[in-house]
């Protein structure tokens, strides 16, 4: 990447990038050890900026939190070494096809082991979408403060969704994603990982999709939506 990207390390460390820049810089971080180290060190400095702001929360909050953690299972550690990705700019067509198969496998595996947040294969798929010259972004905020962003690349034929502070699906339920076809049919595009903050590459071909929907479905998903979407992103053709 260029010097331009390295210069974003400080703004990233203090969360001063917009959602798009943040996504791109995070993709950059997966390949740039220098930037990772710099961001880490700048965060150490930033963490002290609030040293003057010491305000005890009400005691009831402590009780709420300690009661709240009973319902949350701590994630297991990330095991295995995640090797830094090598940037691949332009793959020959045949290689792309092979890579696509690997990507699908990767997504499938990530799917079986959703706690592996940082599956290299999935990052690569996401990175390709984010880096695509025709990547377009749609964002929705929900009343509870959560946020979902869809990034679509028609040239890649893929879309991804990023969520922030998304409430987990109710017990026994899952968020299912849908790609709307020009004929108005909702094709299943996978289940969102059950995490508040996540990036997920939608299954299926988004080349001609006219919309992306999210519905609440029974665990394991449904072949077609059984409820009204909680969010619907209309895509420009």
């Amino acid at each position, binding site marked *: 990447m260029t010097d331009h990207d390295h*210069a*974003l*390390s*400080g*703004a990233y*460390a*203090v*969360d*001063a*990038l*917009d959602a798009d820049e943040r996504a791109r810089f995070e993709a950059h971080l997966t390949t740039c050890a220098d930037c*990772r*180290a710099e961001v*880490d*060190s*700048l*965060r*150490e*400095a*930033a*963490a*002290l*900026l*609030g*040293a*003057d*702001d*010491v*305000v*005890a*929360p*009400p005691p009831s*909050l*402590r009780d*709420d*939190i*300690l009661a*709240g*953690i009973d319902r*949350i*299972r*701590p*994630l*297991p*550690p*990330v095991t295995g070494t995640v090797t830094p990705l090598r940037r691949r700019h332009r793959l020959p067509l045949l290689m792309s096809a092979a890579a696509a198969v690997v990507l699908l496998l990767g997504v499938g595996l990530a799917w079986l082991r959703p706690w592996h*947040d940082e599956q290299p294969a999935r990052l690569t798929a996401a990175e390709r979408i984010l880096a695509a010259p025709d990547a377009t972004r749609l964002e929705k*905020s929900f009343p509870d*403060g*959560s*946020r979902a962003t869809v990034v679509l690349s028609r040239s890649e034929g893929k879309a991804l969704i990023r969520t*922030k*502070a998304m409430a987990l699906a109710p017990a026994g339920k899952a968020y299912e994603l849908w790609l709307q076809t020009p004929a108005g049919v909702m094709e299943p595009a996978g289940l969102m990982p059950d995490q*508040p903050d996540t990036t997920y590459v939608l299954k299926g071909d988004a080349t001609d999709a006219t919309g992306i929907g999210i519905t609440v479905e029974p665990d394991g998903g449904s072949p077609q939506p059984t409820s009204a979407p909680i969010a619907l992103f209309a895509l420009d053709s």
Partner: protein
Amino acid sequence: MDPVPGEPAGAPQGAPAGLGTDLGPLLNRAARGDKAAFADLYDATASRVHGLALRVVRDPAQAEEVTQEVYLEVWRQASRYDAARGSALAWLMTITHRKAVDRVRSAEAATRRDLAYEQTNRTVEHDTTAEAAHAGLEARRVRAAMAQLTDVQREAIELAYFGGYSHTEVAALLDLPVGTAKTRIRDGLIRLRDTIGVGR
């Protein structure tokens, strides 16, 4: 509660109370499901986390929500803390800041906030525990380090960190050419880091 002396002269840096506590081992135990360790971690850091959340989002009710989100996230993600990448405090404050900023930005979609940055506006109820005393020492070091920055560096960092503004918004607020604010923020943070002597 005993009043905290204004100048705890001679107190060692890294005093045992409050944030002087080594947080890493508490996080590691919390990752294994140790609720007592998590409660200790909470007690050692809650005033800092909440203080930052309040400073950024300003609304006390929302700040409490942010603080709660932070600790639930910390409980869930404790195993992902990697001591090789930095201190537990930095990890915690990074999560806090991200959540606080995300909160003000999403709130902004509904009600665009007044772009005037009113630092005078903050009324914080300072707490008088040993934690506060320790933080007071640290705060003086930080203030001294901030004084070493250029005015533009300092303002850019404060607008970004406490105001929750993006670097493009910071550039507009400070009448800087677009693209300059990010450089000021980075240069300022590097100087701050090197003056305080944290990180690499």
